[in-house]
């Protein structure tokens, strides 16, 4: 365990120098989204008596609980991609670390532990903003943090696994354009997936984000989940574990051929 913690420590030392930019994003994004989509768009939706299916909560609370999961996903995806590629290819600091007693498994596990910290920080920033704006009750949003963090890891680990085998940076950008963004829009964050065309609904069920959104709404707003909450948790844990395993395999192939 010591070796993994040393990797966490080194990440924390780097972050100590570079946190400012990400901290601004972590607070600004939720403010912008909750104001524009939640309060702006929400005032129209909430005043329409025909709207049903939001479980009796304000639209802004509905999307806030979904955005909490989506924010964690975003952080997990971003932190699992560019910094990993930098370590492999740009600054090559992964090569430096692996010249020491650190092994690939320590590097991967330590990095994912650190990503859990990063996901927690950005989810916490979101929680603070949504509580401050009166969108979610502080205790409710706190209760949803574990689900959000697990959602973030269900992206951080697979993206970390994909990064070493991505042929070039374009492929990595593709992950955000063609995987993360569509999920963000169509996995229940902004509207219940029952609104999707029937053919697309099963696609949404497969996406990890939908499971994360279900769990966040369940823990923050007391919504019923589609499946047993344990199944949702298990599904996210499965993505995390498979990603963790492949991240070690792919990074070893890439860095220690």
């Amino acid at each position: 365990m010591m070796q993994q913690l040393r990797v966490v420590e080194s990440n924390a030392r780097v972050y100590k120098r570079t946190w400012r930019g990400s901290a601004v994003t972590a607070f600004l994004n939720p403010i912008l989204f909750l104001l524009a989509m939640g309060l702006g768009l929400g005032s129209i939706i909430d005043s329409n008596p025909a709207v049903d299916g939001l479980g009796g909560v304000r639209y802004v609370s509905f999307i806030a609980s979904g955005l909490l999961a989506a924010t964690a996903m975003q952080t997990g995806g971003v932190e699992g991609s560019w910094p990993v590629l930098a370590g492999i290819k740009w600054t090559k600091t992964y090569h430096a670390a692996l010249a020491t007693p650190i092994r690939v498994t320590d590097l991967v596990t330590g990095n994912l532990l650190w990503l859990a910290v990063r996901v927690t920080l950005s989810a916490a920033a979101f929680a603070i903003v949504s509580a401050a704006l009166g969108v979610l009750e502080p205790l409710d949003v706190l209760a949803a943090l574990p689900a959000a963090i697990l959602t973030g890891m269900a992206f951080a680990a697979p993206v970390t696994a994909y990064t070493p085998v991505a042929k070039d940076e374009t492929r990595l950008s593709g992950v955000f354009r063609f995987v993360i963004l569509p999920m963000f829009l169509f996995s229940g964050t902004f509207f219940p997936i029952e609104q999707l065309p029937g053919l697309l609904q099963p696609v949404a069920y497969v996406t990890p984000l939908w499971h994360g959104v279900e769990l966040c709404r369940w823990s923050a707003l007391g919504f019923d989940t589609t499946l047993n909450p344990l199944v949702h948790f298990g599904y996210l844990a499965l993505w995390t574990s498979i990603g963790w395993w492949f991240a070690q395999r792919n990074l070893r192939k890439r860095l220690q051929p």
Partner: protein
Amino acid sequence: MHNQETAETRPGEEPRDGGDLVTARGLTKHFDDFVAVDGIDFTISRGEAFGFLGPNGAGKTSTMRMIASVSPVTSGDLKVLGMDPAAQGPEIRARLGVVPQDDTLDTELTVNENLFIYGRYFGIGGAVLKQRIDELLDFVQLSERRDSKVEPLSGGMKRRLTIARALINEPDVLILDEPTTGLDPQARHVLWDRLYRLKQRGVTLIITTHYMDEAEQLCDRLVVMDQAKIVAEGSPSALIAKYSTREVVELRFAVGQQEHIGNRLDDLAQRIEELPDRILLYTNRGDDAVGAIHERGMNPESIVVRRSTLEDVFLRLTGRRLID
């Protein structure tokens, strides 16, 4: 190291603890179908500066990566510090210092932070680590840049920082992969000076290079690699004695003149090498050859008599073909 003889005639000096630090027997590395290292044997003793010389793609870096225990051995036997890299990689790496070809520094962090983070990977505690960083920055002449970011440092400074970083765990062996590639002459000499001091302190150096002057400056013993195999082994002076002559006469002719000259020189040297721009005569008596050239009424544009260097050995052994 101006006196080349010291390298091979260190009187009665045995490796200090008698231990071989690295032994390889039939060491082989494949990447899919490509054979990068083809069954090589070598032994590196404690305290020596050992060089791997060869053109690009000869297998030097692959060999170094196997020694550094970051690349699995395909077949053959490799022991580093008496241990098996496959089973005891972390234990071996704990006692190695590695200076990679790319500096692999975190350019967003300061000089001090780069050293600190690296030291923590070895589990070195804060107080000890701070003291060591002070000493090492002093040693590589970077104390004044301690809190500078790495990014604006010159190539020579970055390389020195990388060397300081590699010494953070007080390694038994320092592995340097082309340590002065891309540096200007001044920076190279500063670096050689530091490496020479390390050697005098008893640190074993393993160096790859394709610079002959670097190999002659630093290496007690070296192997020449070509096409994945070792083609020669010995001290720089022994290799020169074996594969070259004492002196070399370099003749340069006016453009278009050289073609008519070649066979008129045959009897003047043990071996003649015709390059596109000049002719090299390998002989033990350079001045005699020059006299004979004048007697025969040939008028080269320039004549240089020089001692043989490792470069002559290298070119003889690995050929003059262009390797990209």
